[in-house]
């Protein structure tokens, strides 16, 4: 399936890209992150990282569907 991935803040700096198109066999957001971490060696899993799909916050176990956009948020620090 074809999806898009967007990176923010630290993750954007670690991957060197804002967003990219990905073609893969499907799975959860966590599995997608793992695949992208294999592609971008500086991208590391962080316990406090968050994920959203199509602008809705969700859990890392959430599966992606065709044409979804996954947003990878590094640990947040508002306030």
């Amino acid at each position, binding site marked *: 399936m074809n999806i898009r991935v967007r990176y923010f803040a630290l993750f954007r700096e670690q991957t060197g890209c804002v967003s990219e198109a990905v073609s893969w066999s499907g799975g959860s957001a966590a599995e997608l992150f793992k695949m992208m971490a294999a592609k971008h060696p500086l991208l590391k899993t962080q316990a406090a990282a968050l994920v959203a799909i199509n602008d809705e916050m969700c859990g890392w176990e959430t599966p992606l569907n065709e044409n979804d956009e996954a947003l990878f948020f590094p640990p*947040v620090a*508002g306030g």
Partner: protein
Amino acid sequence: MKFSVSNTKIDVEAAKQTVADKHCGALVVFEGWIRDHNEGQAVERLEYEVYRPVAEKEGAKIIAEAHERYAISHALCIHREGLLELGECAVIVCVSSAHRDAAFDACRYIIDETKSRLPIWKKEHYVSGISEWVNCEQCAAAGHAHRHP
């Protein structure tokens, strides 16, 4: 808008007026300011990156949750984005209620949830010339030894 993101200076008095109500005997205001140090480093300025589509949606949910949990009348939260100088107000939470306990509790709830749930990132620029994303786990593990662009 009960939750909003602003790229200009926060007008504290105007924010307070939006929660004014004659039925309320209490107003609690929390302001988060840019301080000149963090974890032993002298801070020069700070930069907030906000992903607005999700931050605004989740921020509105947090305000709604505060209304469900506490007996408050009005609540408002404004968060800054972009480059901020020392002493500037980065975030404000205003809560009004008939009695003070609910306003204190709701104000605390809103700022805590805002800090932990919203896609907002803070990059500190230190006097030393180094800059770092706050809460970066690799920074913490490396004792602030590595550089970010």
